[in-house]
């Protein structure tokens, strides 16, 4: 490419490594940063999905175990039931996070192949969606923690 300085410019339709045309912020550097992020987000996403599936099945099989408990241990069963519901909710949350990170990685993969502006927008929108979800979850947990602290203080008096 650099051997002939008078060579006509050409589009890079496969777009894996270099981008001849920059449009809407799709530069070589931007795609390179996203490419180097993709592997880590895919890895973490897969771990979240595995953890989510494990927690979800733990909740389901734990529930069926509680249903077989005798009447004398029903009190313990109710306590275990609450824990299993929390496990189930955590499992679903982990699955959502995993799929969001996986979706971001897949969008980056598409961007690497197309170099299209819409794929960049899709990838960035998916990472935005992940941060929004994480932020909302953090807010909810923060509120639960504050309520628990207030409840703890109130029950002391």
């Amino acid at each position, binding site marked *: 490419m650099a051997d002939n300085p008078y060579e006509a410019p050409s589009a890079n339709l496969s777009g894996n490594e270099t981008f001849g*045309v*920059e*449009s*809407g*912020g*799709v*530069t070589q*550097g*931007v795609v390179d*940063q*996203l490419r*180097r*992020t993709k*592997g*880590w*987000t895919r*890895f*973490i996403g897969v*771990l979240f999905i595995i953890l989510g599936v494990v927690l979800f099945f733990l909740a389901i099989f734990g529930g069926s175990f509680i249903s077989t408990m005798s009447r004398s241990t029903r009190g313990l069963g109710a306590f275990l039931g609450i824990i299993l519901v929390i496990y189930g909710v955590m499992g679903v949350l982990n699955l959502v996070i995993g799929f969001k990170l996986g979706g971001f990685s897949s969008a980056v993969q598409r961007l690497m192949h197309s170099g299209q*502006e819409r794929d*960049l*927008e899709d990838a*960035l*929108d998916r*990472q*935005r969606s992940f*941060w*929004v979800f*994480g*932020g909302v979850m*953090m*807010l909810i947990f*923060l509120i639960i923690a504050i309520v628990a602290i207030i409840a703890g203080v109130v029950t002391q008096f």
Partner: protein
Amino acid sequence: MDRPYVPPASNPGGRGFSGEVSPRVFDIMSRTKGWVRFIAVMLWVNVVVAIINVIVTLSSARLPNGDAQKVGQVVGIAIALLFYIYPAVKLNSYARRIGVLLQSGRAGDLEAALNEHRAFWRFVGIVTLVFIGIFVVAMVVGVAGAVLSSRS
């Protein structure tokens, strides 16, 4: 512009030339910034709480198991602090770089912001890998210990 032979001109202040982000990218990043900043602040809050925990532990009376327990607690909290500080710094930098991008609209600033984003995920990935490694080693040691103790 009516003359067909007008020389090309650069557009340093304007929008829409090569190297600028699209309005949609601009919009997405502006809606990302607040949440990233919020999560970074929450991580910093965790750091502050952990530091207070260290101070309280150090200034407390002797623990039931002596100074060894106190030292163990402080070391544990200090290690946990390291795991919070770097992601907090990187997310804060990510939000700050997005702010710069929103001012300039340049693709170069988008690249700089995504560099911070990448650094955050690389750290999370490496820490996760280390923990998985420790977990596997602990499992192997535990199983080996159980097998050896059952033989003896």
